[in-house]
């Protein structure tokens, strides 16, 4: 019996492999191919009976796709990418044979994060890195108009993808300004803190703080020295116990809606971090994907998966004091050997629900859509594009996480890979050195339900200077089910 315990101990030591001593091996790290983007569907594994082909290549930061009433596909180029790359966002039509025709171009206020075609017009989420987030209407001949604006998007995350409900409203996500509600040096690394030194998260309703503050060396040349910063406050502004922060709409980390004809945003639900993907299931229920906490900044949070949530109107989902329905209690979600986060809010609006599914840590689970019929299969399941980890900036991983498309049975939360790169290990094609998937950003079923389009953002290397996205490496893939 003693030998059995000795053996157990020995095996456990072997299995632990000492996480703290291992280096991060994220999908954008190491030897990444950036000089070319070969494209080869044969390098992508799919379930038996499905095939994949590239239908557009050479795109710069594509993020979303939709179809008009004639079934023609349109793709948006974001016009902004992490790494502080500012370009002109574009709406492009995919022509037969792989050509692209520009329909419209926007201002340098990207990233454009989502597009839908509805009743003769396109509706686009404008991320708003420079002027704040907007919802745009674009006519088929390319005329742009703003139907909602003023979304708090100057920080880490932006105004996210959108979906049109049967009630005639546009539903969209809004990301938070920070990782976990405290502005810090990590936000200077993103680039925006030097542009907007007073910017911070905005709650959707009045909140009362516990008064925690976090001290850092200022990254702002005009305001040097040690700075103490509290939650929902500008950098260098401490808070006190019991301090009330007034809420307002539009706000950070929320799902909101506006009428198709435009107007003031209304709150649907809040307490999300970055609800990037959004879609209505065949039964009419609304779901979002939520990029969860990173291990960075003044209040790092460790080991939280991305989430798929069913959105219930009027509910608070837990950010910045819960993850996946579990409370920050000063013990959970701390980096090994680090400090675990404690609550920032003295009172919580409600006990957050549990997620529909918990996806891979740092997988950056983004755009989603539902299979609606038997023609493609997996009817009623959610398909989710996983952009892939941004390690080490977002946190350490031992191997690449994401870089694929998964499907989720929303009745039980079971996640199954659908489209992954061939190879012994997981990762983007630029790391595996073949022509498969790079960073899937969005998925969209064709109107007839027979094909799944995958919007592949392209190559993003992670360097010591931060993300290095590569222009003209984006691809649109089309997955079809064989008829035989």
């Amino acid at each position, binding site marked *: 019996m003693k030998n059995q315990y000795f053996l157990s101990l*020995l095996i456990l030591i072997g299995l*632990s492999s000492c996480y703290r001593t291992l280096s991060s091996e994220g999908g954008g790290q190491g030897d990444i191919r950036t000089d070319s983007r070969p494209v080869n569907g044969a390098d992508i594994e799919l379930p038996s009976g499905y095939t994949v082909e590239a239908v557009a290549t050479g795109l710069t930061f594509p993020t979303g796709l939709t179809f008009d009433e004639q079934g023609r596909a349109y793709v948006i180029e974001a016009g902004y990418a992490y790494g502080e790359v500012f370009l002109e966002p574009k709406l492009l039509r995919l022509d037969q044979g792989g050509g692209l025709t520009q329909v419209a171009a926007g201002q340098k206020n990207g990233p454009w994060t989502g597009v839908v075609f509805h009743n003769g017009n396109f509706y686009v989420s404008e991320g708003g890195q420079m002027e704040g987030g907007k919802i745009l209407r674009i006519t088929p001949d390319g005329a742009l108009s703003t139907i909602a604006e003023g979304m708090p998007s100057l920080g880490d995350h932006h105004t996210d993808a959108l979906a049109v409900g049967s009630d005639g409203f546009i539903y969209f996500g809004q990301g938070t300004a920070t990782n976990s509600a405290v502005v810090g040096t990590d936000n200077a690394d993103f680039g925006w803190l030097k542009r907007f030194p007073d910017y911070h998260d905005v709650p959707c309703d009045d909140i009362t703080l516990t008064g925690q503050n976090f001290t850092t060396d200022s990254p702002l040349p005009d305001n040097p020295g040690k700075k103490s910063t509290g939650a929902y406050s500008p950098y260098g502004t401490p808070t006190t116990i019991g301090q009330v922060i007034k809420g307002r709409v539009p706000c950070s980390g929320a799902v909101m809606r506006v009428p198709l004809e435009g107007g003031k945003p209304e709150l649907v639900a809040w307490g999300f971090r970055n609800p990037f993907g959004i879609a209505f299931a065949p039964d009419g229920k609304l779901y979002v994907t939520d990029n969860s906490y990173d291990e960075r900044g003044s209040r790092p949070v460790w080991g939280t998966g991305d989430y798929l949530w069913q959105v219930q109107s009027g509910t608070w989902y837990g950010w910045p004091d819960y993850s996946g329905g579990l409370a920050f209690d000063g013990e959970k979600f701390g980096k*090994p050997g680090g400090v675990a986060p404690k609550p920032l809010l003295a009172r919580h609006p409600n006990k957050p629900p549990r997620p529909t599914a*918990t996806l*891979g840590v740092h997988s950056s689970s983004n755009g989603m859509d539902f299979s609606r019929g038997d023609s493609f299969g997996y009817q009623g399941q959610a398909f989710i594009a996983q952009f892939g980890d941004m390690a080490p900036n977002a946190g350490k991983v031992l*191997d690449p996480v994401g870089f694929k498309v998964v499907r989720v049975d929303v009745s039980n939360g079971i996640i199954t890979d659908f489209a*992954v790169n061939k190879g012994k290990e*997981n990762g983007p094609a630029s790391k595996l050195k073949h022509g498969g998937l790079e960073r899937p950003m969005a998925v969209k079923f064709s109107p007839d339900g027979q094909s799944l389009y995958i919007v592949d953002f392209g190559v993003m290397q992670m360097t010591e200077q931060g993300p290095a996205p590569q222009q003209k490496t984006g691809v649109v893939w089309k997955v079809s089910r064989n008829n035989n």
Partner: protein
Amino acid sequence: MRLRYTLLLFGLLFTVACGTAKRGEPTYAPIPTSEPAIAQGEVVFNTYCQPCHPGGETGLGPAINDKPAPGFVIRFQIRNGLGAMPAFKKEVISPEKLDDLLAYIKAQRKAKKVKAS
């Protein structure tokens, strides 16, 4: 002699990572979940294990699918945690659910690396 076997096993643990940890669709045939315990265990796996070991592969934590640890060792690690891995007490994963989880993990490890036709 016993020490030699122990060291041999210990060395094996560090060398098993030579093969792929991929299992199930889309690379291979689906994991067989016809047994209720395995089917229930898949739900438990997706709730608690999937975030750090996506599909049983390496992520935030090491791969599970290609580690030849015996069942009692896996149970011990789940209940007590190890290194960066938190402990999952019976209030979180009940004894019945732990049995189901073990059934699924074993099915996942043993899944044949053959593509479905």
